[in-house]
């Protein structure tokens, strides 16, 4: 609607240059080292070889990326729903917060290595255990961020709304919830980086298909190049998800980007 919001054309791209340079040079050093040292590809495959494997096995990788993505999205959707639902409940009922928060904290102390096989044992080799594990790993940062965000609402704004005759529900909707959004996105960025890794780990423990299974099989047949090929795909997935959250944040938190134009 308004065109005079400050924009920074090109600067975003320019700022990305150092990161691109450092990543490219790391891979270059790796490539050069492998070629010069003559190390066996069974020990350390060169990046070029990993890329070749991705191209050669693209059908296999694609077929196994789809179940991993399904588990990630379903798990994250569940996690997001649970985090929002719980956070609202905890905000309206402080006594429930005191009762349940310790349980949530304990849930985050469980080592995934131990809990994942049990969850697979209980829920089988289908989608369910992966969804549950992804949700378990990702809901906590978002929940904490939301609860802290609600609490960080400016008390003067709440007093103001009360003076206007606003109900508790309206104060939540118009003041506490929007106040929590910057916090929520901080938590979301942490969560999203765990999501794919959690899905792959769950598959690794027991699944019919998925990137975790590709990694497991490739490891068992001494194919580090294929392991790394699957790793590249999984990293790419996480980066794409991260970029999506950054875009959504840009839209939702537009008001934070306006800066001080006095």
């Amino acid at each position, binding site marked *: 609607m308004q065109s005079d919001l400050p924009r920074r054309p090109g600067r975003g791209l320019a700022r990305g240059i150092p990161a691109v340079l450092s990543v490219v040079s790391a891979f270059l050093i790796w490539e050069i080292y492998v070629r010069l040292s003559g190390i066996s590809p069974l020990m350390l495959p060169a990046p070029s070889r990993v890329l070749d494997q991705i191209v050669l096995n693209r059908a296999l990788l694609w077929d196994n990326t789809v179940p991993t993505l399904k588990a990630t999205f379903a798990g994250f959707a569940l996690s997001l729903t649970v985090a929002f639902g719980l956070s609202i409940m905890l905000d309206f009922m402080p006594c429930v917060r005191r009762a349940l928060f310790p349980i949530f904290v304990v849930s985050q102390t469980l080592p995934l290595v131990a809990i994942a096989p049990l969850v697979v044992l209980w829920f089988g080799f289908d989608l369910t255990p992966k969804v549950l594990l992804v949700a378990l790993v990702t809901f906590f940062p978002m929940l904490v961020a939301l609860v802290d965000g609600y609490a960080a609402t400016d008390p003067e704004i709440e007093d103001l709304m009360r003076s206007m005759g606003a109900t508790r529900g309206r104060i939540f909707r118009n003041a506490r919830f929007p106040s929590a959004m910057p916090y929520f996105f901080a938590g979301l960025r942490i969560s999203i980086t765990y999501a794919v890794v959690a899905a792959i780990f769950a598959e690794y423990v027991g699944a019919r298909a998925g990137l975790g299974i590709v990694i497991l099989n490739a490891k068992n047949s001494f194919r580090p190049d294929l392991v790394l090929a699957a790793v590249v795909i999984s990293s790419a997935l996480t980066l794409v998800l991260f970029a999506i959250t950054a875009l959504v944040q840009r839209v939702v938190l537009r008001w934070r980007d306006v*800066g001080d134009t006095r």
Partner: protein
Amino acid sequence: MSVLDIANVSVTLGGTAVLDDISMHVAKGEFVSILGPSGAGKSTIFRLLTGAARHDSGTITCNGQPLATNRHGFSFMPQRDALMPWRRIIDNLTLGLEVQGIRRKDARAQVTPLLADFGLDGFTHHYPPQLSGGMRQRAALLRTIVQNRPVQLLDEPFGALDALTRTQMQAWFEKRWRAARWTTLLVTHDVREAVALSDRIYVLSRRPARVIAQVHVPAPRPRLGRPVSAQAHAIEAQLLEILLNQTGETP
């Protein structure tokens, strides 16, 4: 008849007496100030009126009705502007009307004719951080006024501004007030501000706050933007004398 009547109100918060037998009234169209030292409990009076705190004894009536049955007597402007940074200026201005259940479109229609007088024309779609301190304060005041409540409660509205902006804002405000004659209760610790704007001034003691003086300011308006009259000067001196020589706990 008074729009607002506070009679023998006392408040104790957490075992500390904050207000001690406070009585004051505000008539329709009158500008009344509550002047007192910092931390005296001036803002507590507003918290009673907006429902954020309760009084232990005494009565408060608004348009003859007790406070408990009339929660719609006051619109409140807090010390800092308390504009929501995630709402555009126009949506901040309509907040009070939205809470009253008025549809956003109708609320905007009520606000729009007042924008020019408040110097906010052309800034409705900006976010609060894009505005200067003075503009934000004018927006906060307009958000208060459009709620169309019988009494405006202004809690040190110019206290957070730099000296120059404050002087400009006070002069602007006096002009607007002379045109509209909002029934206003102002809390301040600035003697000059109280004398420049008020019809009457209640002076509070240190905590626990009592009304230690009531001063009428008959000086002709406008009082700002010209040299301070001898009469106003004398009242300022009298108020300072009262504030400085009061008994009670030392600051």
